């Protein structure tokens, strides 16, 4: 018998890399990543060097800040890009029904998983290589020790392996790429405290360097960007171990899931969660009231708008019952938090309210993007789109009926935002009514409503931002969804675009206070106009600072917001009209000049 010698070959990795190299999006993403990295690094470098003026000697030693910023940017890039790149490693095979073919080859499950992981890490490492010239520039200015440089590179690589392993494990477990994507972020957040615990234990047991008290608490941020570079060899290795051990665990678990969950049935995570909640509430109702039902949850048959009917009666985020739950689950904690901070100092309570606003905005954009991108993409993935397109419904009708469910979601998500605006307006008034003690229950709502008149411009601009930005986001997401081949790609592109668009200007000013940004904008009106138009988030920032404080005059505030809303309002209208007028082509069916006319002609002929 001929002995089979082990051969060093990575066929799956080779195939994956060849595939990636043949795809246009590989180069688009790389270009996008490089452009963002160099743009942001340039802005940061300029800000750091601006302090030195024209004194070249003063620039010496500034390399530390620059180096830290580059590492921070790369860390942010890893967090944003790697889960998106890696979460589809196994799920894509499951969705294509090709995983079984891989499992029956001579490649073992571990080899498959390992090569899949490598195939996702290689492009990410090439992204990391992009920062070498920037690091070299920072190093040349001095202030960065060799150990710090090495630790930065080692830590970024280790974090890549950690997040990549986590994403691939989620990909092994989940049935769909969207579930794997969400799970990666959820588990990443959940695992963070365990990483900290591991760091602490290592420090206490191995190095016996565990600081006590506030210094110990500081190490809670061991894997935060600020700890990415260190001039301590011990700290570096400790963090490598803390990230490396769970990475091995993720790979081991991923290998187990790969075989056991190779044929897992795809499930909708949100729907599963809501159904479990249903069971819990039914049980609770049975237990507390004996099963009293005030409103029967009857499902009607479709009227003359079948797509709207299905979207609002059958879809997870479309039904009234689930929309109410979404509203309650956002509104309740929000209300409690805002009520709790009402007694705090002026700046503190407004600060908390503003942060709550940013969180709710992010959540609203996320939910709307998920809903809007899936409208047509899900029909394509379920292969039902042709059935609709071969029916006599016009393309315009199909799109408008589809979009109706997003409109309902926007109404629901708009309410928490309006709640925050009312609270902020009341906060800015000095929280009148609160001093009344128990009577506050009656007087506070009246005082909050009265505050609208005192901060009318703020309320108007804020409400307009909701009225314009949410539909704008929904139509952008819808357009991307309708043009994309897969739901996953549509969702990822939409989220990257919307969050990039919203956060990029904020990242540019990351080290400045909002008030400083607004002041600097006011000093240069053309810049203010450009800033107002470059991102929707800028005007939200202006609203939150200039609208309530006296940083901006009422006229300035209104002018800048008016410029923004006009621009974005027109953008929303244009995208909506473009989608509707080109609906036939976007949906991929033949166009007719006037469908009703044509039908009448046929009836006339017959």
């Amino acid at each position: 018998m001929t002995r089979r010698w082990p051969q060093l070959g990575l066929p799956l990795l080779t195939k994956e890399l060849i595939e990636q190299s043949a795809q246009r999006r590989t180069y688009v993403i790389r270009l996008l990543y490089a452009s963002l990295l160099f743009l942001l690094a340039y802005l940061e470098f300029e800000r750091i060097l601006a302090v030195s003026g024209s004194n070249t000697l003063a620039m010496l030693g500034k390399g530390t800040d620059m180096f830290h910023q580059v590492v921070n940017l790369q860390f942010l890039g890893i967090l944003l890009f790697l889960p998106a790149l890696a979460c589809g490693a196994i799920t894509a095979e499951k969705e294509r029904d090709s995983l079984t073919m891989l499992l029956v080859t001579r490649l073992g499950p571990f080899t498959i998983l390992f090569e899949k992981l490598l195939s996702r890490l290689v492009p990410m490492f090439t992204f990391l290589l992009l920062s070498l010239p920037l690091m070299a520039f920072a190093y040349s200015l001095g202030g960065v020790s060799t150990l710090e440089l090495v630790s930065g590179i080692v830590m970024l690589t280790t974090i890549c392996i950690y997040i990549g392993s986590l994403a691939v494990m989620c990909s092994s477990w989940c049935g769909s790429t969207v579930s794997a994507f969400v799970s990666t972020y959820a588990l990443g957040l959940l695992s963070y405290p365990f990483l900290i615990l591991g760091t602490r234990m290592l420090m206490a047991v191995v190095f016996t360097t565990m600081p006590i008290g506030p210094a110990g608490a500081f190490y809670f941020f061991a894997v935060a960007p600020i700890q990415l570079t260190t001039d301590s060899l011990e700290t570096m290795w400790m963090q490598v171990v803390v990230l490396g051990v769970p990475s091995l665990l993720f790979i081991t678990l991923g290998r187990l899931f790969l075989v056991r969950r190779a044929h897992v049935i795809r499930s909708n995570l949100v729907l599963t969660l809501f159904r479990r909640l249903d069971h819990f509430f039914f049980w609770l109702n049975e237990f507390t009231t004996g099963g009293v039902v005030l409103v029967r949850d009857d499902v009607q048959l479709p009227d003359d708008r079948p797509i709207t009917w299905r979207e609002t009666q059958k879809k997870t985020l479309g039904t009234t019952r689930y929309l109410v739950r979404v509203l309650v689950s956002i509104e309740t904690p929000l209300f409690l938090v805002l009520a709790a901070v009402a007694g705090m100092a002026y700046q503190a309570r407004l600060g908390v309210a503003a942060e709550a606003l940013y969180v709710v905005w992010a959540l609203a954009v996320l939910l709307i993007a998920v809903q809007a991108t899936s409208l047509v993409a899900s029909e394509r993935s379920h292969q039902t789109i042709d059935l609709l397109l071969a029916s006599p419904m016009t393309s315009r009708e199909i799109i408008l009926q589809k979009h109706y469910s997003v409109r309902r979601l926007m109404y629901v998500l708009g309410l928490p935002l309006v709640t925050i605006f009312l609270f902020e307006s009341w906060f800015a008034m000095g929280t009148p009514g609160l001093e009344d003690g128990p009577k506050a229950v009656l007087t506070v709502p009246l005082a909050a409503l009265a505050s609208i008149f005192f901060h009318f411009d703020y309320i108007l601009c804020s409400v307009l931002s909701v009225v314009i930005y949410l539909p704008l986001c929904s139509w952008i997401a819808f357009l991307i969804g309708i043009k994309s081949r897969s739901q996953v790609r549509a969702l990822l592109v939409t989220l990257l675009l919307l969050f990039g668009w919203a956060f990029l200007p904020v990242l540019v000013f990351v080290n400045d206070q909002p008030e400083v940004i607004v002041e600097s904008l006011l000093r240069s009106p053309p810049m203010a106009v450009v800033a107002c138009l470059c991102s929707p988030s800028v005007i939200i920032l202006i609203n939150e600072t200039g609208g309530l404080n006296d940083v901006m005059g009422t006229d300035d505030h209104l002018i800048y917001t008016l410029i923004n809303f006009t621009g974005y309002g027109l953008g929303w209208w244009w995208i909506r009209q473009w989608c509707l007028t080109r609906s036939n082509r976007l949906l991929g069916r033949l166009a007719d000049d006037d469908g009703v006319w044509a039908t009448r002609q046929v009836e006339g002929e017959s």
Partner: protein
Amino acid sequence: MPPDDPASLKTADPVPADVVPVVSIENLHVHYGPIHAVRGISIEIPPGEVFGFIGPNGAGKSTTIKVLATLIGHFTGTAKINGIDVGRRPQAVREQIGYMPDFFGVYEDLNVREYLHFFAAAYRIPRKQRKTVIGDVLELTDLTHKIGDQVDSLSRGMKQRLALARVLLHDPQLLLLDEPASGLDPRARIEVRELLKALTEMGKTILISSHILHELSHLCTRIGIIEAGEMVAQGSLEEIFRKLQLMRVVHVQLTGSDDGVVDRIREIKGVASVERQVDRFAIQLREDHTAVEELHEALVKLGVRIHMFQPEAMDMETAFMKLTEGKTA
């Protein structure tokens, strides 16, 4: 033996001038980027006909059907349904057709009743009539007892019958059925075939595609064989056989002594060969010379006692293999 005039196979006998063809395609070309998927196909289907579209995967069958279903915008040539130009008035065409794609799109969140009501609304059937119409199509497809079941829980065969129920909701004159029997088990396949026969008896015009040749030979009045986007033959099965000079095989069992009977059968006019098999004779017959009935008569005249006389269905596989070369577009 190759046909004398291969070009004659590509065109069928024209539809009589006083009959408006339900489907009329002339010189249809479809491109997907650099791929020339359909190359100058021409078909005419008169009312009430079942036209079978045969070809290997990637031949252009689905693309041609999609053009008729108004789902492809970039084509050249003419495609008409009941005289209405598909390219110019697709909205009117959609009222005339029932399209069943080669996959069953599942709305997993709907049950059978909701599924049919959904499409009844999409086809603008008045609300008052929907219940009756849905009852009728469910009865026709024998799915009345499944009305409350989730669509996702149905077997593949039932899903196909439900899809047929869906395309019948608005009572279209033309049914475009793309691989309706694909992936079905034998029982489900027979059920679908019987259902299609019932629809034919109702006077529906059907354009059906398949790569299962045996399926279509039982059902179609005419067939078109397509390869690499080109129509290589069309007409009734008999016409194609005649033009290809293919022979029909007749299986015969004789009782009693068969001394010299093989030689005597060979002498019958039109018999090309006789093969002795374990329990029967397989006679290859040139039908253009002798009809099957005439062969039976001739055998009786020979004085043999016939225990079994079984003409084989037209061997479409032979015709297909003879006409195609395994090319794709």
